[in-house]
C-alpha cells in the first residue's frame, strides 16, 4: 500500500484523507495543534444555509475513523525533502516521516486586526472582529464594551483584504457573505438594533448568496453603506465613533456605534508560510502556488507534493471540500495502480 502524508487536519485534510484511505492508500494525517478542525469550530453557523458548524465538524471528524487513517496530533511539519522516490517530512523536532506523496492542507489564519490600528482593535472595547462576533453568536451573548445590549452594530468589510497598505491585494472571498449572515443572526437575536454594513462592493458570488443579500435588506432591515471607514475613536460614553464617506451620495459621515465588527480577511497560516518558504513552493502573499489555474490546480511546483484548500487561496468551506476531493483524485491518478 502506498503511503500518503497529509499536512493539516482541517476540512481539506480530513476530506482528502478519507477519500484516499477509502481507496487503499495508507494515510498519515499530521496536525500541529492538539485537535482537528479548529478553524471550523470557531464558527457558530455557516453560510448560506445557517447550518451548524459543530454538526459539520462532527461529520468530518467521523471520517477520521476510517481504518487506513492514522492521525498524528501536536506534530508540526516544517519541511519536505525528496529522497529518490520517497518524501521525507521533517517535523519541528527534526524527526523525519516517510511518504510516497504529500498533500499540503495547512490552511489559513485570520488577518490580525491589530495591524489596522486606525480601527482601534485591541484598544477600544467596542471593536471586535468577525471571529469574536461569531463566538458571541455561538454563546448567544452579544454585548458591547460596557456589557449593554448594543443598539447599533456596524460591520466593516475588507479589513486586511483588498488592502494595498497591508500588502493583501486579494479578495478574501468569504467576508461579504459572512457579514450578511452574521448581520441576519444579530437581527434575530436583537430585533430592535440598527445594523449597518460598510462595504466597497459586495461580492455575492455563490449559490444562494445574492438571495441572502436581498433578504437581509428586505426582510431583516440591514442597511448597506458603500464606503470604507477611515478611522474609529472612542467617545466619552464608551461608544465607538467612526468616520467614513457614503460614496453613493458623496457625503462624509460620522456616527457612533456600540459595536464595530471588523470583517478580517484570510491570510496563509503560519504552517502554510513555513512550508511554502522551506520547500520553495510559496507564491504570492505566501500562499502555496499551484502549477496551473485550471487543470493542474492541485499540483505544486514540486513533483509529488499536492495542495488543497485555503493553503492556496481564500475559499469557502464548500469550495475547500470540493478542492480536497479533486486533490485526492489527482493523487489516486498519479500514484494508484493503473489498469
Amino acid at each position, binding site marked *: 500500500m502506498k503511503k500518503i502524508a497529509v499536512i493539516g487536519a482541517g476540512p481539506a485534510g480530513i476530506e482528502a484523507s478519507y477519500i484516499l484511505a477509502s481507496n487503499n492508500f495508507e494515510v498519515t494525517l499530521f496536525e500541529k495543534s492538539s485537535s482537528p478542525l479548529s478553524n471550523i469550530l470557531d464558527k457558530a453557523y455557516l453560510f448560506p444555509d445557517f447550518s451548524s458548524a459543530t454538526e459539520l465538524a462532527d461529520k468530518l471528524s467521523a471520517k477520521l475513523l476510517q481504518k487506513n487513517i492514522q492521525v498524528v496530533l501536536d506534530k508540526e511539519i516544517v519541511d519536505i525533502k525528496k529522497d529518490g522516490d520517497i518524501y521525507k517530512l521533517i517535523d519541528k523536532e527534526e524527526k523525519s516521516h516517510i511518504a510516497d506523496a504529500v498533500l499540503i492542507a495547512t490552511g489559513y489564519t485570520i488577518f490580525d486586526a*491589530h*495591524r*489596522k*490600528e*486606525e480601527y*482601534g482593535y485591541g*484598544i477600544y472595547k467596542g471593536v471586535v472582529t468577525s471571529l469574536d462576533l461569531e463566538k458571541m453568536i455561538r454563546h448567544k451573548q452579544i454585548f458591547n464594551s460596557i456589557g449593554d445590549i448594543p443598539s447599533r452594530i456596524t460591520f466593516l468589510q475588507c479589513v486586511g483584504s483588498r488592502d*494595498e497598505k497591508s*500588502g493583501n491585494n486579494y479578495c478574501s472571498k468569504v467576508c461579504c457573505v459572512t457579514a450578511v449572515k452574521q448581520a441576519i443572526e444579530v437581527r434575530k437575536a436583537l430585533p430592535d438594533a440598527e445594523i449597518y454594513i460598510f462595504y466597497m462592493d459586495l461580492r455575492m458570488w455563490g449559490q444562494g448568496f445574492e438571495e441572502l443579500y436581498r433578504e437581509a435588506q428586505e426582510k431583516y432591515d440591514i442597511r448597506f453603506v458603500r464606503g470604507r471607514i477611515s478611522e474609529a475613536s*472612542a467617545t466619552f460614553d464608551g461608544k465607538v465613533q467612526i468616520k467614513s464617506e457614503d460614496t453613493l451620495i458623496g457625503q462624509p459621515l460620522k456616527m457612533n456605534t456600540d459595536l464595530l465588527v471588523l470583517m478580517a480577511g484570510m491570510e496563509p497560516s503560519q504552517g502554510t508560510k513555513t512550508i511554502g518558504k522551506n520547500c520553495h513552493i510559496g507564491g504570492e502573499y505566501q500562499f502555496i502556488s499551484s502549477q496551473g489555474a485550471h487543470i493542474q490546480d492541485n499540483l505544486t511546483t514540486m513533483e509529488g507534493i499536492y495542495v488543497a484548500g485555503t493553503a492556496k487561496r481564500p475559499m469557502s468551506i464548500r469550495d475547500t471540500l470540493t478542492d480536497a476531493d479533486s486533490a485526492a483524485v489527482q493523487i489516486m491518478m498519479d500514484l494508484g495502480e493503473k489498469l
Partner: protein
Amino acid sequence: MQNLFHPFVLPFVLGTIILFAICIWKFIRWFRHFDRLQRAILRKNIFSWKIIPALWEAFREGLLHIRISRQNLILGYMHRSIAFGWFLLIVVGFFEAHLTPLNSHPVWLAIFYRFFIHEHHLFASSEVFTFIMDLLLLYVLSGIFIAFCKKIYSKAVGMKKTTKHVLFDHFAKVSLWAIFPLRLLSESLAANVYQNGGFLTQSIGNFFSPWFAETFLTTSWTMYSIALGTFFVALPFSRYMHIFTEIILIYFRQMGVHEHLERTGYTMYELNACSRCGICIDNCPLNKDLNITNVQPVYFLRDLRYKRGTDAVADNCLLCGRCDAACPVNIDLLAIRQQERNKREQDHCDYSYLNNIQPFNAIGRVGFFGGCMSHLTPGITESMKAIFEEVEQKYWFLDEERTICCGRPLMQQGYLEQAAELRRKNSELIKKSKISVLITSCPICYQSFKNEYKLSIPIMHHTEYIMKLLETGKLKLRKDDLRTVYHDPCELGRGCGIYKEPRQILKKATHLVKAKHEKEESICCGINLGDTLIDIRQQTQIRDAAMNNLMYKNPDQICTACPMCKRAFNHATDFPVKDIAEIVRENMIKK
C-alpha cells in the same frame, strides 16, 4: 635678462582672464538677486568675528574635504589630493617663482617655472622647493589616478552608483585630468634638457632620449597650457564651478544667510556649489529600493541650474532628508526642493468649517496635539492620556473631537496659502486657550509648530515631555526583558535633531538594540506624505527595506516615535510595532 615669455603661455593667460571675468560676473549677478532679509543679515555680519569660523570651514571643506572623508576615506583622499594638492602647488609655486631673483615675475612664471628657469641654486633652499613641488605633483597625480579608478570601478571608493554627467562635464573633466600628466611630462622633458628636475621629474626625464626631449619640449608645454586654458574656460559652465562657489557659499552661510521660500540669488550659489559628487545617489531610498535614478539632488540641482527643472523631478522625493544629511557641501537640499514645489497659482479652498471650531479655556493645563496621524494610531493617543493621568497632569486634547491639520503636509506639497490658513486657526486656538506648553506625539506636527508657527509657548515632542517627566521623577519606569530596536523618524531625527531623548527613555524601559543604520542614516519608512508620485507598491518596497534595516539584530519589538512610521510598519506585519508612549505606558510604575 632671461626671456620669460613664450607664445605657449597664451592659452593659459587667456583662459585665466576669461575664467575670472565670468566668475566675477556670475557672482555679482547672483548677489544682486539676494532678497532684503539676506542682504540685511549679510550687512550685519560681514565684518564680524564670524569670518573666523567661515575661513576655517572653507579650509576644511573647500580644501581638505573632511565631510567626504567621513563617507569614505579613499573618496575623501581623492578629493583632498586634487583640491588641496593643487592649491599647494599654486601657493608653493608662487613662492618659488617670487623667491627667484628676477627683474620681473609674470603671472605665468609659477605655472611654467621649469621651462623658463634652468639654473639651480638661484636662491637659498631652491632645491627644497624643487623637491616639494615634485612631491605635490605626485600627490595630485595620485588623486587623479583614484578618480580614474573610480570611473572604472566606483565600489572601490564606496560608491555603488556615480553621477551620470552631461557631455560638457565630461569635456571639462578630461581637460582637468590631462593637466597633471601633461605637467609631469613637460617638467620631465625640461628636466632632461636643462637638468632642473626634482626626484620625480628628473628620474622620469632621464628615461627620454635627449633628441626626443628637445624635439617635444615646446609641444608638451603648449599642450599643458592648452589643457589649463580649456579647463579654465569650461569651468564656469561645468560642475567645477563649485570650486569657487563653495568657498563663497560657506562664507555666506556662516554669516547667517539661508534659503527662503522663494528662489533667490543665494539659491544660485547653492546650485552652483554642488560638485555633483553623487554621494546623494546612494543615500536616496528611491534609487536604492526603486531604482529611480533621475530625481536625486545631484540631478535635481543640475536641472535647475541649467533651467531644465521639472515638477516630475521636484515632486518625486520622500523629503526624508537622508541626502541632506549626507551632502558634503551642506546644501539646503530640502529647502530648494520646497521652493520648486511651491505652487505659483493657489486653488480656492473653503475654510468655513474652521469657524465651527471654538477655542477652549485651558488655563493651567498643558496642550496635547495628536495630529491627523495619531488619530489613525489610537494606541498612541490612549497611551498619552494614560501617562497624563498617571502624573496627574491636567491636559487639553486640542484635536480630540475636531481635527485641524497642522498644515505641514499641505506646505510640503506647495500649498502655502492653505497651510497658512490652517496655521492661523490653530495659532488662534492655542493662544486663546492659554495653555502653558504644547505637546505633540507627531514629529510632522512638532516640526511644523516649532519652525513654522510663531508661538510664544514651548513646543515639545512627546519623547521630550516623557524624558522630562523621568528626569523630574514624576514618572518611574521598570525595565522589561524585551530587545527593542528604535526607528528614527525622518521628521524627528534629521528634521529636528532629536536622537537622544527616545534612546534615553528606551534604555530605562527596555533593552535597546541597534539597527543597521540609525540616527542621521536612518531609513525612511516609505509611507509618508512627502512623495505623491510613487505608488503604494513602491512605498511598500521602501518600507520593507526600512524593516530589514531594523531587524538587523533580531529584536523582539520595533519602537518608533512617529504615528506615520508606526502605521507603515504595523500594516506590514504581525511583528510588534509600538510607539514610545505605548512602551512607557506598559512599563510605568503606577502610584
